[in-house]
């Protein structure tokens, strides 16, 4: 296509840090020494780590060059399904770097940290409003950490009732962290198949739910981008057998202000602030995974909890049923500041956020359905899932489509997940993409579908214009080289 966004230009090779530099150089400004050296038993002294010595400019160029090999949301459309790669507002970075926040010590006496405590207290309130679940902890450092915390809460609840349970129901569409988190709580996960519509049937659940089952972990909207329409019925079944419903809220971006998660029967829900609430992913983290629970489960939340009395905020440890601490301090506070800034900036426009996110996803679904096989032909939420079924006959697989998309200037969607769809192509545009941006993506996807028929080779060979081409992952795993 003439108007391809992706093109090539001059970038720079850059060696590993220790392939540069020379002993005696420095990139650091050493504070001047105003005290005498103190003796230290030579038995304790090491040689000091073998780090390269580099000038400030050498280090600056190193990381400037490296950054140019990366693709971020600021580089272009990043429709990575289930990851909600929306715009990360610049103002959030300003707020998080305010000296009063960035420079504050977590163990200061509460009277010296009222600003941070108030921010967390109010953020908890906002998340409760958004989910409908009244009690919140901000301590988990990521979604998966939230799952772990949530399942601990559920386990503690059952223990408190004097009847610990050993199993948990998990749909086959669930993210890998769900069973892994359950396992850490000593819970055996029982897989549930989703039905022909890509969602759970109450009967299936009814068939599996028993008195040794702690409950169910259900992602809603699920990883097929579909709303679990039977969630309320399923919750009733689970509750009837004394179980609890864990909600994976990674996809909350689809339903803010639209669904009341509490009303839907969910007892515990985790949120990914680094998805729905616009905080950056930083190439892997840090994230933040608060959990929101019903009043009944509040006593089990991690400590310390923030309590307010006549305008003063303090940290309370006095919660005997609490699962305890899950983070050394209070979680990823710097991420909380960003999410709080975002919520303050949006207010009730968060409902608009969800509406537009869902609009963008359905628009893509409709405009690509004739050239890619649509796994489940139903209205979708924040994302839509295709497969390579139509391309397979030309020997073209999802991976080839993904790699070729890079050359068109887009980040590929999530691929080969969820596992229930063979060769899945999971597309989540998010609401911050404009119609033009999405149309350009659609044009690229359609052009690639054409290429798959007309010259599959271009797809097999892709990407050619990136800093490196397809990498040998098998070799990497066979004899791992994990450091120099």
């Amino acid at each position, binding site marked *: 296509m003439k108007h391809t966004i992706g093109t090539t230009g001059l970038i720079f090779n*850059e060696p590993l840090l220790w392939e540069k530099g020379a002993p005696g*150089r420095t*990139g650091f*400004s050493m504070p001047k*020494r*105003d005290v005498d050296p103190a003796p230290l038993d030579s038995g304790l002294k*090491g040689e*000091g780590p073998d780090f*390269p010595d580099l000038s*400030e400019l050498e280090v600056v160029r*190193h990381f400037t060059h*490296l950054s140019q090999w*990366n693709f*971020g949301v600021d*580089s272009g459309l990043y429709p990575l399904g289930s*990851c909600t790669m929306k715009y990360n507002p610049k103002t959030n*970075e300003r707020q998080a770097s*305010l*000296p*009063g926040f960035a420079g504050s*010590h*977590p163990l200061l006496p509460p009277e*010296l940290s009222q600003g941070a405590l108030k921010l967390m207290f109010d953020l908890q309130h906002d998340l409760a409003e958004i989910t409908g679940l009244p009690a919140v902890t901000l301590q988990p*450092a990521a*979604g*998966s*950490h939230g799952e772990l915390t949530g399942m*601990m809460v559920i386990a503690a609840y059952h223990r408190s009732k004097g009847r610990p349970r050993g199993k948990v129901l998990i749909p086959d569409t669930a*993210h890998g*962290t769900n*069973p*892994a988190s359950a*396992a*850490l709580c000593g819970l055996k996960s029982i897989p549930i198949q989703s039905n022909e519509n890509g969602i759970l049937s109450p009967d299936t659940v009814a068939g599996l739910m028993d008195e040794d089952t702690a409950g169910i972990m259900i992602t809603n909207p699920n990883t097929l981008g579909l709303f679990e329409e039977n969630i309320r019925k399923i919750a009733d079944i689970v509750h009837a057998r004394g179980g609890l419903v864990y909600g994976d809220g990674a996809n909350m971006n689809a339903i803010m202000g639209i669904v009341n998660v509490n009303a*839907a029967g969910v007892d515990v829900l985790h949120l990914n602030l680094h998805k729905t609430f616009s905080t*950056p992913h930083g*190439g*892997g*983290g*840090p994230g933040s995974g608060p959990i929101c629970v019903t009043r009944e489960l509040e006593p089990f939340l991690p400590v310390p909890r923030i309590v307010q009395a006549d305008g003063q905020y303090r940290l309370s440890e006095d919660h005997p049923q609490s699962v*305890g601490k899950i983070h*050394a*301090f209070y*979680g990823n*506070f*710097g991420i909380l500041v960003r999410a709080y*800034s975002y919520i303050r900036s*949006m*207010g009730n426009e968060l409902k*608009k956020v969800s509406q537009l996110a869902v*609009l963008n996803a359905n628009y893509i679904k409709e405009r690509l359905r004739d050239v890619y096989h649509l796994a489940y032909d139903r209205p979708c939420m924040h994302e839509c899932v295709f497969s390579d079924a139509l391309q397979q006959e030309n020997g073209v697989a999802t991976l080839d489509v993904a790699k070729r998309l890079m050359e068109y200037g887009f980040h590929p969607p999530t691929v080969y997940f969820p596992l229930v769809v063979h060769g899945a192509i999971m597309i989540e545009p998010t609401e*911050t993409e404009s*119609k033009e*941006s999405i149309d350009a993506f659609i044009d690229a996807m359609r052009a690639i579908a054409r290429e798959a028929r007309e010259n599959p080779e271009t797809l097999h060979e892709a990407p050619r214009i990136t800093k*490196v081409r397809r*990498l040998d*992952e098998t070799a990497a*795993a066979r004899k791992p*080289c*994990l450091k120099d």
Partner: protein
Amino acid sequence: MRYLPHTSEDIAAMLQVVGADSLDGLFSTIPEDCCALVDMNLPEPLSEWDLNAHMGDLADVMAVSPEYKIFLGAGSYDHFIPEAVRQLLLRSEVFTAYTPYQPEISQGTLQTIYEYQTLVTRLLGMDVANASMYDGASGLAEALLMAIRITKRKKVAVSMAIHPLYRRVVSTYFSPTGFEVIELPYGKNGQTDLSGLGPLDELAAVAVQSPNFFGCIEDLQAVGNAAHTDSKTLFVSCFSEPLAYGLLKNPGSFGADIVCGEGQSLGIPRSFGGPGLGIFTTKQAYVRSMPGRLVGQTVDKDGKRGFVLTLSTREQHIRRERATSNICSNQGLCATAATMYMAFLGGTGIRELAALNRDKAEYLKGKLKQAGCAIPFDSPTFNEFVVQFPGGAETACKRLLDKKIVAGLPLGKYYTELADHALVCVTETCSKADMDALAKEVTS
């Protein structure tokens, strides 16, 4: 709203393609009983400018240096961070990228993490490091669970001189499991007392922290020997102040099997306790039992060097309930900051900086002794130490607060027997003048 690009024309055109009559129409599959019946009760949206004012108000009431002189460490350290780190971290190609699942367009992140893995293994004297854990506490918990997986044993011995908050996280991680924690007391000199360490044959791991919570440098040789009297038992050494290893012999040289801890010290702002950096390293032999992501070196189609996420069969997205951990998002950007910080500092710099931290701490220690404070533990320390304030820690600290001096962390809350003691920290950011002021005020 500046984050929402859709004009009403865009919306109309897209709705038509979708075949919905309105935005609400998009949610037809959601049953009544799940719907939010009332609007969310959220405050009115703030403009960028009102937000600045609002956040300024919240931040301004926080106590930070230079207004306050803060001698507080205890797992969160005040070190100078080069402005260059701050500006490089804002390079949006890195900062707004997700986990590097597509290596061809993620080499920046991948090479950085490979460099991170290499530098921390060099710092700690270990074979392999993962791409990071949430923090020092959860890292320690995962280390102990890893030892349990490897040894198939159910008990671990944990020093009481390990950061009390880390130990609480460990017990939270252990609570739903049947596993047991045996606590090792600390001795008169502030080091872990190993004498109570009976027959090891059911111990999965012996865990200490060095420098420990009291700032005391543990006798890792002794701990290693004790742990390894049983060939299966793993020696786990953790830390909250990695800068110490710019100066001290690293845990690897004492044969530690797993070395993990908190890396906030390495160029990451304290930020009220997070985000920090869970550093996790082990021996080659245990790499496949390790939690967390790993970046490995490989070549591309044309034989060019490149980096990828590897050994992911250990991880939840492949192995699901049988994964070595549930961790997915980690602390990548903090690991990136630490890599930059270590690069600016260099081998020469980190040694000099570590020495300066200890020398300043020793200076204050001396000053406080002269001022009549008792120093209960006589084993060597790095940049933190325990002090007994005349008239009790709580009251002393309270009094000093009026002088805008945060004299340290009163220990009574964590160790009843140390009720009138405080943990005092000195880094390169404390000037001689500040320390003299503290010493003077203590006695007055």
